[in-house]
């Protein structure tokens, strides 16, 4: 049995080696070698871009927290609905995902501009207009819009498995709604929170497209700098050094998240 499963794993193994391990190795190599010469110039140069790294983490963190706050009640309500309406709501949520997210981000540019669709509509109704395009707010909005479904889905998947009788039992034992939410539902849905947070935070912290379109190329995130090193400046050494740093930081964040996750599982089992 073990032998059989190992054989089935082979194609996946090859895939992983070709498209994950080899590229990662190349990133690590280019981070320390510039045209075959060992150098730490790329790594040391990162420190002068700390503000951009911090800005990326700040915006991604805000987007993640807001996504969680928006997604959590929605996922909970949805999981308590009868099956038929659940399917409808899920479809409605999934529908925008059938479109390229690059396209959707571009559309947000047209929506948010000073002379964009929303502001034109507001001024036609003699309502005050607002300036949002090319600000941090616009970038955060773009992140939330693009990645919200990745928060809802894992939360929903976990919550739908929470047995209704568990909640009923809590009610019978005199727990009020707040108790039920914080002592029963929340601990049981922690694995969903962890994977949702990871799935929103990681793409948000490394994005360059959203900041380029909705930030007007002025909100310069770490992803923008990495992209420009490969696409414009042709400095593979610095680009790779920054990618490697970002990857390590993301691993640390994920490690912390998973630590919470494991604790939660142990907690619920005991």
């Amino acid at each position, binding site marked *: 049995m073990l032998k059989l499963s190992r054989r089935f794993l*082979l194609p996946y*193994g*090859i895939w992983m*080696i*070709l498209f994950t391990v080899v590229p990662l190795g190349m990133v690590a190599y280019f981070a320390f070698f510039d045209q075959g010469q060992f150098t730490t110039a790329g790594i040391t140069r990162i420190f*002068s*871009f700390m*503000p*951009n790294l911090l800005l990326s983490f700040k915006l991604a963190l805000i987007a993640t927290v807001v996504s969680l706050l928006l997604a959590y009640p929605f996922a909970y309500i949805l999981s308590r609905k009868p099956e038929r309406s659940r399917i409808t709501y899920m479809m409605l949520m999934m529908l925008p995902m059938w479109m390229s997210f690059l396209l959707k981000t571009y559309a947000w*540019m*047209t929506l948010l*501009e*000073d*002379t*964009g669709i929303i502001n034109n509509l507001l001024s036609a109704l003699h309502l005050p207009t607002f300036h949002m*395009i*090319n600000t941090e707010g616009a970038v955060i909005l773009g992140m939330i819009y693009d990645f919200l479904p990745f928060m809802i889905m894992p939360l929903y998947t976990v919550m739908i498995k929470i047995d209704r009788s568990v909640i009923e039992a809590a009610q019978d034992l005199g727990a009020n709604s707040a108790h039920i939410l914080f002592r029963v539902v929340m601990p049981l849905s922690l694995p969903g929170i962890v994977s949702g947070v990871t799935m929103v935070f990681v793409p948000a912290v490394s994005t360059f497209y959203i900041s380029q*379109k909705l930030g*007007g*190329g*002025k909100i*310069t995130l770490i992803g*923008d*700098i990495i992209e*420009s*090193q*490969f*696409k*414009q*400046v*042709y*400095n593979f050494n610095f680009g790779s050094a920054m990618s490697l740093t970002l990857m390590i930081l993301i691993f640390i964040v994920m490690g912390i998240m998973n630590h919470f996750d494991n604790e939660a599982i142990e907690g619920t089992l005991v």
Partner: protein
Amino acid sequence: MKRKISVIVACALAAGSVLAFGSCSDSGKEKLVVYNWGEYIADGSDGSMDVIAEFEERTGIDVEYVQFESNEEMYTKIKSGSASYDIIIPSDYMISRMIEEDMLQEINFDNIPNYKYIMDAYKGENVGFDPSGKYSVPYTWGTVGIIYNKTMVEEPVDSWDILWDETYSGKILMFRNERDAFGLALKKLGYSLNSTSEAELREAADLLREQNSLIDAYVMDEVFGKMESGEDALATYYSGDAVNMMETNPDLGFAIPKEGTNIFVDAIVIPKNAKNVPAAEKFIDFLCDPEIALENIEYICYSSPNSGAYEMLDDEVKNNPVIYPDEEIISNCEAFVHLPPETIQLMSDLWTEIRAGQ
């Protein structure tokens, strides 16, 4: 032992898949891979000819048409060897870089009879990007200038200084690519846009950094939407695109600053690793056919180096100063040439810092 075999099989599969990706173009019909700027060939929309389809019909060669957004993006892709193309249409300075780095092959002009229509003034050997004139066939040319919205800018636009004018704070769009951005900053300072002096480049960088707070956005293709809708008052961009925008929004105007600007020539080249050179030559000859060149130039709205196509243009276009400016203005313009690696490195580093808000 088994593990060893797995490793060997994995390697063989890896090698096999690389070969398979590389050679799939050999099967079936003859194929030509063209790598060009976005929106840079007549595609059948707006009553134009679908030039690619016409070529496919005339020759039976299948064209795979791929687009890029900047010279640097194109260069990176070619340099990394991740893809092979038969035809590329880069700009002047990038062509001179690719010639120096031995990335292009000489074109056999015997196979391109329509080359006789290309005007001497725009050929690589005269503009300077292809000193031997052996590697490139001019496709279009144009200038860089300021596009402005007449309803928002009432004063005459005749200098780069207006892009540093606080009156228009938050209403200015600036190039997102370093060479154009530095070029106009250097011109504003009265230097050559091919300057290799570190002091001059640092001075230009200070100017660009100072401008950062006045800029609404750093853009490339996004400029179309933003200027056409009246979102911004001033933008730096290419003359041909300005004509396109002015057609959509009649409030827009185009000015070439008195300090001088960049004249650019985009030319057709064949990269060294092209797989189908005969088809590439056929394609170049086809693009130089005055009727096809006319179709393309009417679609792109840039200026044509093709005398046959120029003659056939409407008088209105021939006399449009945005597309065919006076010789006096042209003589005040400067073309980009390839810069030494130290200068490129310095400019790139400075640009990365400016964009990072440092």
